[in-house]
């Protein structure tokens, strides 16, 4: 009705009729769909990450690799024989093990000290005759249990325990947190509760510069400055050239700006009324800071710490440069031990073939790393949501 009234009005003034009804605008729809696709890309990224990590990890856990047992058959074995003699020495074989002789796969039914009784022609292979002296290979396959409990990691020869890598990751991250937490929190308290406007204006850019320096530079710093420093203080016999302590300390310096700026944000968000109330009660500055402001900002601080831990665990270049190559199961921070990220970098740095246990193994480590950091990030988000004090 209103439309007609309007057009009547317009007609009355002698201008051509204007149709003001809503029109379908195809162009707008196309643009909106394009923008939606842009937004959905981020979901594809996540799906891609989870899918690829899971797929290659599945290969890692289902893949059969052959380990040389150094055992040979003593005499020629016909295609029908179910029992044959094997040489002494070499790896221990158990009942139920899958073994391979040339191209034929068989399963051990029972064994005595020098003879094996097997089921021939397993896994789709045909039973065939074998000459004396042929070597036995034992099938090894990563199991979840071995992955999480064994302390040896070398997938190429059938050692699938990820613990050495996880332990050294945890050690470097803990050292980093020992450096970054106290320093970061104190700096944040200083910046938000003590520093003058001018001091804050000069200090914050310095922190931002520190935060913008690429991690590879920190790695260089660890190797050329921190390691020699540690070695000259503690002695060359104690500290190895590549060690977790140096990498951890420098990693702490790396996450220091992050801890500081997140903590400072949390502290600044505490309303001034709380501080004034504390002063009115006769509290000194430090009592106000430590007993009123810090508890009030607790959720933000906790979130900052957890996010920093997750950052430390995922940090790569420092440990790749300074913590040493080659997995080692050690709790001594002054020894070399490869972390999860360092291992991924070293393995993928060489030309690896796509169809190898090494290729699958870095994705399995990546999946574990992804879950560790994701869990920490989700926890920090929950803390913020759950414990945030709303003023």
């Amino acid at each position, binding site marked *: 009705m209103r439309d007609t009234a309007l057009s009547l009005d317009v007609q009355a003034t002698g201008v051509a009729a204007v149709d003001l009804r809503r029109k379908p605008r195809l162009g707008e729809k196309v643009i909106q769909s394009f923008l939606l696709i842009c937004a959905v890309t981020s979901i594809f990224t996540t799906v891609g990450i989870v899918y690829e990590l899971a797929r290659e990890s599945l290969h890692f856990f289902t893949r059969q690799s052959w380990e040389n047992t150094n055992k040979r058959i003593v005499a020629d074995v016909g295609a029908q024989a179910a029992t044959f003699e094997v040489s002494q020495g070499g790896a221990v074989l158990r009942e139920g093990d899958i073994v391979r002789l040339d191209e034929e796969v068989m399963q051990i039914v029972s064994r005595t000290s020098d003879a094996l009784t097997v089921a021939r022609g397993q896994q789709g292979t045909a039973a065939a005759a074998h000459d004396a002296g042929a070597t036995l290979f034992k099938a090894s396959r990563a199991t979840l249990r071995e992955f999480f409990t064994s302390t040896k990691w070398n997938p190429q020869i059938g050692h699938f325990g990820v613990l050495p890598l996880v332990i050294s990751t945890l050690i470097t991250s803990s050292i980093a947190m020992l450096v970054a937490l106290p320093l970061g929190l104190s700096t944040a308290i200083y910046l938000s509760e003590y520093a003058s406007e001018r001091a804050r204006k000069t200090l914050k850019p310095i922190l931002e510069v520190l935060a913008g320096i690429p991690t590879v530079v920190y790695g260089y710093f660890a190797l050329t400055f921190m390691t020699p420093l540690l070695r000259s203080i503690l002695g060359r016999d104690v500290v190895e050239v590549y060690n977790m302590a140096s990498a951890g300390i420098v990693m702490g310096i790396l996450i220091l700006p992050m801890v500081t700026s997140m903590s400072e944000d949390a502290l600044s968000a505490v309303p001034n009324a709380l501080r004034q109330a504390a002063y009115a009660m006769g509290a000194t500055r430090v009592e106000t800071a430590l007993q009123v402001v810090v508890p009030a900002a607790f959720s933000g601080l906790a979130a900052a710490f957890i996010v920093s831990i997750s950052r430390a665990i995922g940090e*790569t270049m420092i440990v790749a440069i300074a913590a040493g190559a080659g997995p080692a199961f050690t709790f001594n921070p002054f020894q070399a031990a490869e972390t999860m990220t360092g291992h991924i970098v070293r393995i993928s740095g060489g030309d690896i073939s796509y169809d190898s246990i090494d290729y699958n193994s870095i994705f399995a480590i990546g999946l574990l790393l992804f879950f560790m950091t994701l869990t920490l990030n989700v926890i920090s988000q929950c803390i913020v949501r759950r414990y945030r004090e709303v003023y």
Partner: protein
Amino acid sequence: MKSISANGAFEENIPQRRRTGQIWHTLFQASTIVGIIFLSALLYSVLNQTFGLVAIENQVDPAALAVGGVSVEELSKEQLVAVLQEHVSKGLFRRFEYDRPFAQRSREEVYRLVWQHVVAPQAVETWSLYESIFARDEIEAAVAEEFPDATLQFRSWLNRRLLTASQSSDPEQAGIRTAILGSLWTIAITILTAFPLGVGAAIYLEEYAPDNWLTRLLQTNINNLAGVPSIIYGLLGLAIFVRALEVLTSGAMFGATDPTTANGRTILSAGMTLGLLILPLIIINAQEAIRAVPDALRRASYGLGATQWQTIWWHVLPNALPGILTGTILGVSRAIGETAPLVVVGASTFVAIDPRGPFSKFTTLPIQVFQWTARPQDEYRNLAAGAIIILLLLIITLNALAVVLRNRYSRRL
């Protein structure tokens, strides 16, 4: 504060509490200073390695090459060729001739060959800046004793050769030219991938998205992606871009295959991987910039009969642009310094030829720093320090640009 209730004890307590306060204050201040000391130590260790004394030993003393009393610098081209023929092996000489006949080479070129292959200066030992300044006498004595033929010279490892020479197995010849070009190519691809996608996603989330499960999922997902370690993106790039999309990323689809690369480990893969890495950062920053545009502007535009897209394109985006650009620059400066994902995607360990396009093999500045740092020779550490300074200059310039943009436009609305 429990003593407040006790009468009289309150005042006795005050000096004690003040002292505690003072101690804590000093502690807080000290930790701030420690942070600054760390930054200085880091810069110091880099600068310390960039400059310093070098003991250089020549394979052949240039004075011995003089012909008839004319020093080697003033020899004619023909004489230089003769010198070269006399001192290098026949095979090597033939290779020079084969690469480019001597008749076509200029005198300077021949002179450079003589210098590289006959005189062949090698740094036998290097010292840091600190040692060079404070222990110069001892160094001179040590050099005179250990390397009597060597000359001592003060060198800045950050020099023109470092910038213009390509990668080489001889530290005297090595430079970061290929690495810088590789970085620039990679970053170009990164921006082309991440900027349109990131800004598009931010516009959708801020201007169009209804409040439903999909939007909440998108937002949570973006926040979580920002916390995923960069090396995981490297694994994603390796599996998707390098391996699954090899036809596309190696350039085989376009028939533009670089003969030196037969696989997907190219600049294109690296750039797209970094693009995905900084995507969440760009989205979050662009969202904030768009959110900061006042609603009055949108209503005014709608009031004049503009459609939603016209409003966004003509009013929201121009006002949000400085913020969006600031976020993008910060993302780019992060991407320039990223090393781990590129190692995983398959940066080449040794590239001596300039990249010619998105389908070339690549190395980047941080990768070069990583590789030189990992080598045991001292000269490579010095070269790495020089490369780090270039990298830091690049990143600080970008960050400064972002800060200027932010300060300049932040007060306009």
